[in-house]
């Protein structure tokens, strides 16, 4: 009940009870209450016109970084004796310094400005309203207004810098990069020898082989290094990412951001497919702008219920067969047909699996039953990963209690030929 409503009820009660019992003094007691109401109506602000303007120190920040919000309110209407202001913030943003609420006086033509600092977790936030309440000095007449403002804030996941991710898709693009193209030419890694041809560098001559076969001169060929198409698939299905009140999804997002950065830095053509509540594509592209596009997409993604993974479809126009796919998913055994289907279409597949077993176990109380259940599920999970390894999928199991950089350094910087499937932890 507002203040004016309360005083109205009180004054009516006094009048009615005074009339009912026929006591003039009770009626008289209603007079000061009615006077309060009269004063409220008398000084009520009329023609309130406010204009709000919002400035953010940055529209894109990393998760946990602070951003300063500066709000300016200009009064283009009548004098306001008491003005309460509140910058409406989404739930997932937190105040670091200052306050998003203020109370002030604002005369016609005056401007009031204040700033505060906030931070938040990954997400895309629209900041488009300042709630203003104009009151007269006794606070009885209230005029609430919503002031529209511009403002959006991308809080992108932290990007871990990975030195190199060793992938070896069977199909590469024509531009030079860091991925062995299985074609002889100039490069670093030895590929083949061939008979010397005019134009070959004398430094490329394989003197040892030429000495063994004096009828010809042979020159070394090196594996050409090219860029590749890399499609990253982020699994946001609730049934694989959420375990009661805890979710592993943020870890998956962080790993995806690190992988995107590493592949983009190596000059590859990278696209992102999010598989959660709905399928969301970030079209493949090159360069820093593409990296930024993918980070923006990552900031908006939320896990959700979805149909089974079997319906996963990779448009060949975007990622032709034999290109590289990277799946970031805690995985379930039901995913095997979909993954083997991708493999049979010729895609090179790298699976980064944030370990759901140890993650869920860390949130459960330790008991014998939990320990036994964990062992059983761990066995099933390990067997599933070995099945994936058996069909030629490179699998990286990531225990999320370990830093992703160290796991990536250990498991992904080496050549996939050396890895041949699941890591030695499995």
């Amino acid at each position: 009940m507002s203040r004016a409503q309360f005083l109205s009820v009180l004054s009516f009660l006094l009048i009615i009870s005074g009339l009912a019992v026929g006591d003039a003094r009770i009626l008289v007691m209603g007079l000061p209450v009615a006077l309060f109401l009269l004063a409220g109506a008398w000084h009520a602000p009329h023609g309130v016109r406010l204009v709000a303007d919002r400035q953010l120190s940055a529209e894109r920040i990393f998760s946990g970084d602070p951003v300063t919000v500066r709000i300016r309110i200009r009064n283009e209407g009548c004098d306001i004796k008491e003005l309460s202001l509140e910058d409406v913030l989404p739930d997932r943003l937190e105040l670091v310094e200052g306050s998003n609420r203020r109370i002030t006086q604002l005369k016609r033509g005056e401007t009031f400005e204040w700033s505060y600092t906030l931070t938040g977790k990954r997400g895309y936030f629209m900041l488009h309203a300042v709630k203003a309440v104009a009151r007269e000095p006794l606070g009885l007449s209230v005029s609430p207004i919503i002031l529209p403002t511009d403002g959006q804030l991308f809080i992108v996941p932290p990007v871990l810098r990975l030195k190199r991710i060793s992938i070896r898709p069977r199909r590469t693009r024509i531009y030079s990069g860091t991925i062995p193209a299985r074609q002889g030419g100039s490069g670093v890694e030895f590929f083949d020898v061939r008979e010397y041809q005019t134009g070959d560098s004398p430094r490329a001559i394989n003197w040892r082989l030429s000495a063994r076969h004096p009828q010809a001169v042979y020159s070394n060929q090196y594996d050409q290094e090219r860029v590749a198409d890399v499609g990253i698939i982020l699994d946001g299905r609730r049934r694989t990412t959420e375990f009661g009140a805890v979710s592993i999804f943020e870890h998956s997002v962080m790993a995806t951001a690190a992988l995107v950065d590493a592949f983009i830095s190596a000059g590859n053509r990278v696209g992102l497919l999010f598989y959660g509540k709905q399928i969301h594509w970030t079209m493949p592209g090159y360069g820093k702008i593409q990296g930024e596009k993918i980070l923006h997409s990552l900031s908006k993604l939320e896990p959700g219920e979805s149909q089974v993974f079997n319906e996963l479809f990779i448009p060949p126009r975007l990622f032709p067969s034999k290109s590289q796919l990277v799946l970031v998913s805690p995985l379930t055994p039901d995913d095997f047909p979909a993954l083997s289907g991708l493999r049979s279409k010729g895609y090179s597949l790298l699976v980064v699996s944030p370990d759901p077993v140890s993650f869920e176990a860390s949130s459960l109380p330790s008991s014998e039953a939990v320990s036994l259940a964990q062992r059983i599920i761990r066995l099933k999970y390990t067997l599933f990963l070995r099945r994936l390894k058996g069909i030629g999928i490179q699998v990286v199991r990531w225990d999320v209690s370990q830093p992703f950089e160290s796991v990536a350094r250990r498991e992904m910087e080496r050549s996939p030929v050396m890895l041949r499937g699941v890591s030695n932890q499995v």
Partner: protein
Amino acid sequence: MIRSIAIVLSVLASGCVGSACLAGGQPWLAIIAFAIAIIWVFGHLKRWGWVHSPAVLCIFILLSLGLFLKLSTGLLFTSGFLALIGWDLSDFSSRLELSKGEEHAQNLIKDHFLHLGINVIAGVGLVLLALNLHLRLTLGALIGLSILSVWGLGRLVFRLLKKE
């Protein structure tokens, strides 16, 4: 500071009603007033914004009962005014917490006290005038005046609530 004033006024308002009841030989009403005072002060300390209005309502109910029982008019009216001021200041102090000690706060406090003071003085004057002015009115005129006051008050309330 303002919160402290509001607490003192709350205690005084309950105290005045309680004293009037005790002086008039109504110890049970005095105990109720004492209980209201405790709850109201506790509400202030716990910053329960919802407690102020019910407390004022209870004080006014006690006050009306006291007037009906012909207890001390002066104490009861004083209690009513103190309760109203205490109620107003407790809400104002919670609103003022948003100002974060800025210079605007001083102007806000000054303006608020000015308007509150004018209202209280006008209210006291009106009450004194009403209590001392004895007009002889016919029943028809009385009914007419009552209807007019209710209509006027209704319009006032409608105007105030329309903006919310």
